[in-house]
C-alpha cells in the first residue's frame, strides 16, 4: 500500500526513536508524537513502520492515530492556520473569523491549499481565553481577531 516514498534518512530516524523507546508498545503515543515531529503528519506508510517496530498491528496504530485530534493523516500547510473554537473564543465570535478564513482561502476545515501554503484547522483551546478569539499561524498567536483582520493576517504570509 506504500504510495508515498518516505526519505530513507527520516525512516532511519523514526526507527532509531522506536529503539530509544525499547520498542515498547506502551510508548506508542510518545513514538507517534516524535514521528509527527519528523514527517509533519502520519501517513499510512509511517504507521506501517511504527507497527512493525513496536510489534503491534497496523489497525492498533491506526486506531490510536484516529482517536486523538493532535495526530493528523493529511499534511498541514506551510503556514498552518488554527482557529480556536473553545467556548470563550466561540462566544466572542470565533465562528465568523473562521468563516472569513474559509471564504478568503476557499478552503474547508482540515484542507490544505493546492500550493501547500495554507491549511485550516480548528483548535479546542490554547488556554489564551483572555485574548479571545485567538488564531494561530504556525507558532505565532494572534489575539482578539475580528473578521476584518483576517485579510491582513493572510497577507503577511503571501
Amino acid at each position, binding site marked *: 500500500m506504500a504510495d508515498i516514498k518516505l526519505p530513507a534518512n527520516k525512516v532511519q530516524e523514526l526507527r532509531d526513536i522506536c529503539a530509544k523507546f525499547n520498542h515498547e508498545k506502551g510508548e506508542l503515543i510518545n513514538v507517534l508524537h516524535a514521528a509527527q515531529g519528523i514527517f509533519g503528519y502520519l501517513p499510512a506508510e509511517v504507521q506501517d513502520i511504527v507497527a512493525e517496530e513496536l510489534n503491534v498491528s497496523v489497525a492498533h496504530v491506526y486506531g490510536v492515530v484516529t482517536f486523538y*485530534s493532535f495526530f493528523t493523516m493529511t499534511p498541514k500547510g506551510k503556514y498552518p492556520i488554527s482557529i480556536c473554537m473553545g*467556548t470563550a473564543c466561540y*462566544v466572542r465570535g470565533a465562528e465568523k473569523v473562521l468563516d472569513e478564513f474559509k471564504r478568503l482561502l476557499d478552503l474547508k476545515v482540515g484542507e490544505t491549499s493546492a500550493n501547500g501554503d495554507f491549511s485550516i484547522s480548528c483548535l479546542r483551546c490554547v488556554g489564551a481565553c483572555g485574548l479571545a478569539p485567538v488564531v494561530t499561524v504556525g507558532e505565532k498567536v494572534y489575539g482578539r481577531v475580528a473578521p476584518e483582520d483576517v485579510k491582513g493576517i493572510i497577507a503577511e504570509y503571501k
Partner: protein
Amino acid sequence: MTPEEVIDEIKRSGLRGRGGGGFPTGLKWELTRKVKAEQKYVVCNADEGDPGAFMDRSILEGDPHTVLEAMAINGYCTEASKGLIYIRAEYPLAIERLKIAIDQAREYGLLGDDIFGTGFSFDIELRYGAGAFVCGEETALIHSMEGLRGEPTVKPPFPSESGYKGAPTNVNNVETYASVPVILLKGADWFSSIGTEKSKGTKVFALAGKVNNVGLVEVPMGTTLREVIFDIGGGIKGGKKFKAVQTGGPSGGCLTEKHLDIPIDYDNLIASGSMMGSGGMIVMDEDDCMVSVAKFYLDFTVEESCGKCAPCRIGNKRLYEMLDTITQGKGTVEDLSKLRNLANVIKDTSLCGLGQTSPNPVLSTMDNFYDEYLAHVKDHKCPSGQCKALMSYIIKEDACVGCTLCARVCPVDAISGEKKMPHVIDQSICIKCGACFEKCKFDAIFIE
C-alpha cells in the same frame, strides 16, 4: 509526620478534587494506601481539556515545583515510588518548565533514590496527551498513558485498586496537588477555616466570555457568582445585559440571573443544575442564543465522545441533530419533549462521566430558557438574532433613500428597487449574509 498523619491532615482539611468530581482527596489517598502491592503509581492529571479553562496551565507554568512536591508527598503516603504527569501536548511551555523543575528537583535530591537518607525513593516522568477530552476521565487517562485509545472502563475496579499497568494508582488533578503543600505547611485548621461547610479552601476560576475583566480569579469557596462576575469581572462588556453564566465546561450548565447570589461550592452548583467542573466560567450576554450555545456544547461532545458506549455515541449525535433542526426553524413543540427525554436517557445510561454529563447544557438551558426554545419552534424566531436561518433582513421604507449601495453589495442579487426609491429584499433569495446590513449608511436595514 507518618504517612497516616499526613493523610489524616489532608482529610481534616476537607480538600476535595479540583478536577470536577469533588471527591474527598484524603479519602482517595487512604484508599490507595490500603491496597497492598509491590508497585504503585502517583498520577497527575494535567490534561486540561475543558475549553475555556486554563488554571492548570498557569500553575504548571508558574509554579511546577508545588505539583512535584505534592506528588512526592502522595508517594510517601501511598508507598508509591513512581509518579507520572499526563500533560496535553498543546501546552509546550508548561512541558518545558515541568522538565526544568524535575531536573532541578533531582539535582537537589528532592526526587530520586533514598531522598535525604530517609529510605524513601520517588521519581517523576512525563506522559503526553494527544488531544482527547475524554482522557480527563481517570480510567481513560490511564489507558492513554498505556499507549492505547483513551477509552474509559467500568468502575469498579477503581484506579486505587487497579490502575496504570494494573497497579494501584492515585490520580489527582493539578490544582488538587497544588493545594497539598500549603495545607501541610499551614495546617488543616487554617485551610478548613476558608470556604463553606462542605467545600473548603479556595478555587481558581477561568473567567471568560462577555465580561470586562477576563482571566484567572482565585476566590474562597462560597463567593457568589455576582461577586465574581460583577465585582471582579467588572460587569458585562459594552454595558449589555447579563444573560447567563456557563460553569463546568461541556459537562456543566447555564445559570441565570436568579442564581447569581448562590454561594459557589460543589453542592450548590449541582443543586442548581450545573457543576463546578474544573472551573471554567463563561459569561454570556443578551446577544447569545441559548439554543445555539447548547448546540455548540453538543457539537463538542459528539466530536469528543470516544464511541465505546451507545448512549453517548449515538444519543449525543441525535441530540445534536435535534438542536440543529430547531436552530434551522424546522423544530416542533413535540421535539422539545423528545429532546428532554433523550437527554435524560443519555444521562442515566452512559458509561463514563463524559456521557453522563453531556446533556447538562441542553437540560439546563431548557430549564432556564424554555421560552427561548419555544420561540424557536413555535414562532420560528430566534429572540437573540443569532440563528441565521430564523432571521430576516428587512429594509425600512421610510429610512431608505434609494442609494442602491445594498443592491450592489448583495452577492445573490436579492435586492431590487429604482434609484432614489425605497428598495426591497426578496426573502426567498436572501442568504442572510448581512453584507447589506453592514454597508447601509442610513441604518435603513434591520434584523427581525
